[in-house]
């Protein structure tokens, strides 16, 4: 029991509240109630198989399961179509209201916040590693496996080990074109791909308070690329405004106590952070984009659960406006949701992209994981606003992926090689 005096981090408080405790120790294993259980067309078929083996019959709450077929959709082949059919049939049998067919869908981690499905203070699990994205809303949110999702669908609960917390305090104003993506690539470059293994990453400080929600989603999204369990932000006026815009109020707001124990605090000065690029084959290979020299490219992808939101498309459009992509450059723009797609159309961004020689795709995870809609051949090289650049991630095992934010990706499409906006506008 906590006598009300023992300070805790946000992560501890949310896990304590969801497991009926006042205090949880770091390293303790708790059985906690979850608010949202998410799965997609890759992970959900396996979860449904396991769910049926448990023999629970009905899901614990048909309003708390979310299914988004987004990875290989619109169905890229017969096998993928079969996988999606498993989701669709299960959603029908179980009356799952938050099943999103392609016409109303989007990439899951852009879609759930957009629909107001995740609230600050929620405990969210998803069978997708980038489920940590909702940390931007002050939720404790993490990726798990299909068996976890099966058990949570049956019982509403899941086992969690209470993580220790690494605090990242960002100060100073950002340089032109620098966004949350650059801050997170820089941070992962600093601590490594396992620098936050099993830990909660808590992002704070005046610089992140100045970031848009889109930039915060982009940062929280990549906590997993440092091995993190959560990538969490404090709930401030921007988060509250975002939730009001979804018609959501009355949630509980958690803050880390002033005396909470952080395993380590990183003080990061943003004034010197340049536009970042992570070179193959790890997201931690962060370099200053302008220092990379002549790196020729075959393809550019702007999209994904990391950077397919309005801020990203608007930034890219500023650079593409009145310009043409390099002659042989395959430039693929993927708005993350139908709503973003429509807004980009109304604002004239799609016209700018198409006039510049880009293609615009329906929302899908597609090329990010080498699924479809832009696969690389042997020896080819892409820059992408996605989140991973592992061997073979976007196609052939002998291809290469460089990771960046939207500004570098757009500038590179025009230059035909890795470039910063100043070189093309």
């Amino acid at each position: 029991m906590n006598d009300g005096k023992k300070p805790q981090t946000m992560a501890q408080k949310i896990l304590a509240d969801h497991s009926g405790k006042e205090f949880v120790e770091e390293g303790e294993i708790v059985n906690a109630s979850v608010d949202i259980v998410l799965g997609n067309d890759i992970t959900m078929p396996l979860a449904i198989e396991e769910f049926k083996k448990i023999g629970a019959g009905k899901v614990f709450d048909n309003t708390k399961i979310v299914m988004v077929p987004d990875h290989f959709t619109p169905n890229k082949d017969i096998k993928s179509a079969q996988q999606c059919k498993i989701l669709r049939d299960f959603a029908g049998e179980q009356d799952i209201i938050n099943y999103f067919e392609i016409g109303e869908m989007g990439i899951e981690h852009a879609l759930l916040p957009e629909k107001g499905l995740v609230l600050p203070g929620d405990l969210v699990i998803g069978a997708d590693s980038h489920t940590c994205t909702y940390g931007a809303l002050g939720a404790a949110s993490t990726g798990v496996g299909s068996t976890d999702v099966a058990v949570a669908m049956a019982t509403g609960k899941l086992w969690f080990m209470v993580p220790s917390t690494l605090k990242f305090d960002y100060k100073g104003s950002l340089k032109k074109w620098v966004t949350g993506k650059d801050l997170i690539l820089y941070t992962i470059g600093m601590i490594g791909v396992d620098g936050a293994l099993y830990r909660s990453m808590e992002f704070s400080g005046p610089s992140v308070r100045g970031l848009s929600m889109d930039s915060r989603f982009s940062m929280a999204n990549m906590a997993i690329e440092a091995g993190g369990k959560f990538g969490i932000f404090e709930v401030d006026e921007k988060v509250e405004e975002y939730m009001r815009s979804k018609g959501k109020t009355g949630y509980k707001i958690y803050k880390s106590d002033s005396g909470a124990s952080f395993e380590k605090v990183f003080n990061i000065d943003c004034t010197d952070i340049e536009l970042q690029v992570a070179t193959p084959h790890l997201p931690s290979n962060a370099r200053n984009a302008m220092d990379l020299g002549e790196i020729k490219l075959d393809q550019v992808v702007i999209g994904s659960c990391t950077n397919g939101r309005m801020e990203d498309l608007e930034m890219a459009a500023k650079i593409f406006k009145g310009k043409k992509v390099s002659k042989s450059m395959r430039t693929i723009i993927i708005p993350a949701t139908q709503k973003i797609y429509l807004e980009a159309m109304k604002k004239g961004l799609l016209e700018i992209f198409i006039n510049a020689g880009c293609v615009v795709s329906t929302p899908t995870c597609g090329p990010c994981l080498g699924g479809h809609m832009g696969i690389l051949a042997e020896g080819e090289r892409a820059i992408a606003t996605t989140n991973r650049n592992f061997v073979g991630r976007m196609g052939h095992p002998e291809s290469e992926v460089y990771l960046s934010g939207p500004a570098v990706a757009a500038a590179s499409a025009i230059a035909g090689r890795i470039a910063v906006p100043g070189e093309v506008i």
Partner: protein
Amino acid sequence: MIIKDKVIKYGNNVDTDVIIPARYLNTTDEAELASHCFEDLDSDFKEKAKERKIIVGGENFGCGSSREHAPLSIKASGIKAIIAKSFARIFYRNSINTGLPLLVSIEASEHIKDSDEVEIDLDNGEIKDITTGITFKVPPLPDFIQKVISSGGYMKFTKKQLAKSK
């Protein structure tokens, strides 16, 4: 439980994209998944796994995606256990949940060489390199996790719990 077999050794940050590339994730068939296991990292894996059934990795084994297909494809390839300096957290969960034993040991990971014969005593937390005769102690898993593993995975554990509560 004792696991005695020869070792296939890999390096740091073995990610889920090389364990089972996403292009094969349009199925849940374990044999089909196994047929593509590690193909982008080691084209000889299938051959090796016929005679060597323990994998030794370095740091952050299994980093990347949440795909449970990763431990499933490894298990379906006949691999009986993985030893590494550290494991990525979702891969760790998925392996426990699906009943693939993982052992964390920096010393064992550094010492054991490719093709060494190794004996793992899961109950007593010991890894013995039979080729060199050196034994390493492994810290015991938390009680809850041991219960999940001894039940044969998280699904079976939950099924038992639900039956008890009825």
